[in-house]
């Protein structure tokens, strides 16, 4: 019963995914024409960065079962690497983005080799410790590496970070409309990331993870090597996360240790959790909801972080599968209600048993 239903629902959801994507592309193209507030567009760009990072964390945790808390560290690594290449070697930002992302991949593979043979919470604690170490080493870096004018500059940029190392070139080409240009670039980055994520989830490796999750013993017996598969996904996700870090540094023309703070990591996790861990559209839904909530709470100013913390805890308790999961439950419930009327009792009972 369930096996005969599954292919149907997959093709159904694929069609739905395509429709949602087309609608989103339409909305993304229309947005700059509808919004002329620079502030709003700027927040949208920031939200797209959040959605990109959250989608990659979701790929790790939701789909591959890697509970990594080094997501912002990898993002920062990509950003720092890009900024440092530009700063120290005078490269163009566009040329530095790819090496920056590769540096993030190398970093992630080292982290992965140290962590991924372990299970669940050990991975979480170790990646958290690694991220925290990176933060501490950058912030406490006071040794002069080069002198810029009369100012001492540390190798890692210290507590200040890096600024004025170049930008995406949109200011030169588009003048006053540079933000629209950056918006287009970051939106494209997000789209490419989502497409890549989709391909990974639907690929044999994505199926292997599904098997590992549903029945670890069986999957291992069938020759799925958990460690190698996780390391691979860890590296792929680090590429897009690091690339996003590079674009982030280039967009803001600055990068500092602040993005490594616990509250930034929490915001990413909150996005994934509220949207729905392990659902494809969860990170996007979560970003929209949380960025909107964040804007509303800006009015409440100081209660922002408090509210965010409570939102995380409550959504885990009240809707473990997030908003997207809840929506799925609702759709299934409606479908069953409308479908059950015409069918025989037997069919209905097998359908509920298969849930």
């Amino acid at each position: 019963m369930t096996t005969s239903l599954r292919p149907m629902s997959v093709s159904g959801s694929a069609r739905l995914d395509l429709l949602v994507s087309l609608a989103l592309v339409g909305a993304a193209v229309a947005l700059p024409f509808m919004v002329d507030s620079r502030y709003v567009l700027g927040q949208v760009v920031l939200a797209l960065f959040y959605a990109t990072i959250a989608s990659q964390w979701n790929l790790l945790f939701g789909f591959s079962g890697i509970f990594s808390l080094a997501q912002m560290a990898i993002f920062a690594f990509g950003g720092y690497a890009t900024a440092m290449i530009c700063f120290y070697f005078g490269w163009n930002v566009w040329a530095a983005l790819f090496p920056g992302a590769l540096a993030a991949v190398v970093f992630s593979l080292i982290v992965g080799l140290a962590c991924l043979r372990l299970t669940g919470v050990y991975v979480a604690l170790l990646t958290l410790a690694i991220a925290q170490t990176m933060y501490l080493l950058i912030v406490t870096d006071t040794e002069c590496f080069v002198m810029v004018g009369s100012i001492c500059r540390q190798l890692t940029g210290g507590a200040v970070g890096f600024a004025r190392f170049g930008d995406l070139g949109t200011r030169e080409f588009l003048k006053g409309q540079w933000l629209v240009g950056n918006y287009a670039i970051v939106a494209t980055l997000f789209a490419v990331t989502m497409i890549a994520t989709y391909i990974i989830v639907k690929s044999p490796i994505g199926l292997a993870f599904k098997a590992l999750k549903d029945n670890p013993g069986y999957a291992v017996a069938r020759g799925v090597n958990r460690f190698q598969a996780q390391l691979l996904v860890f590296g792929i996700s680090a590429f897009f996360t690091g690339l996003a870090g590079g674009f982030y540094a280039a967009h803001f023309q600055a990068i500092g240790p602040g993005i490594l703070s616990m509250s930034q990591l929490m915001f990413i996790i909150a996005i994934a959790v509220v949207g729905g861990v392990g659902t494809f559209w969860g990170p996007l839904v979560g970003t929209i909801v949380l960025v909107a909530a964040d804007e509303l709470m800006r009015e409440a100013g100081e209660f922002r972080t408090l509210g965010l913390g409570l939102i995380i805890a409550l959504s885990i308790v009240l809707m473990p599968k997030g908003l997207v999961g809840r929506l799925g439950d609702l759709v299934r419930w409606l479908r069953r209600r409308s479908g059950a009327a015409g069918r025989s009792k037997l069919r209905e009972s097998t359908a509920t048993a298969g849930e």
Partner: protein
Amino acid sequence: MLDILTSIIIAGLTTGALYALATVGLSLVWGSMGMLNMAHAAMLTLGGYAAFSLSSALGLPAVVGFAGAVLAGAIAGGLLYVFIVRNLLNNDKATFESNVMIATVGIGIALENAILLTFGGQPLKQPISATGSLIIGPVNLPYQNMLIVIVVIALMALVALLLARTRIGRAIRATAQNREAAQLMGVAVNRVYFQVLVLSGALAGVCGVMVSSMTQLSPPLGNDPMLKAFIMCVVAGLGNLPGAVAAAFGLALLEAFVQYAAGARWGFPSLLFVVIAVLIWRPAGLFGRAQIRRM
């Protein structure tokens, strides 16, 4: 040279005692219910501020402030169970582990921020502390450090006694060792979880007073000891109480030496290096039970 060495050892032992107290609270909760309490740091901070409010703001004697810290931590632990943990227990093991971690991170951030909003971000002085020191020849023993070590040892003995000798303690250990069997014996596992979180909260409260008496009160007070305590729990193998205490003292001494020899900023990285080295060598920690903790 000798006085430098002794001061390093004294500093190491004192922070070791503090870490040990934090690890016991964390390890107890992990061992009995498979829960990593990321809100432990905020519960620590809460204890520190509770003692401050009672002693400094209300002018009550230090003992009342201390009891207030214990009570505040215990209540926070109890509420954490009632509102969060209880509702996540029907998840399967792996989902519970990650969900409870995320949820407690949220609670921790909310609690830390509530403290920030109530007391402000400026550092405050913890009134419950001892001044002066005992001088034996070249050795200078601050009373505060001695007090911390003595209180921690006393508390640890108390916890050990509770776990080893009492009916509640035996039920906690039974639940940790085999949850289903404990249920079959008539142990109400949910009540045990509640008790464990209350106990761990009370320990966090004391720990908060102690930590803040060494430094100062500030809302992120608990974060650094908690992260280090986690590292120590992992080095020992999560859920192993005596191992965690040993690791706490060992690593705190190491940290003190590294900080003296290479500078303060290398203290935490050296701990990270040790934990990675240990986990590569023994994936379930030094004293961990590999067959139980690994999948």
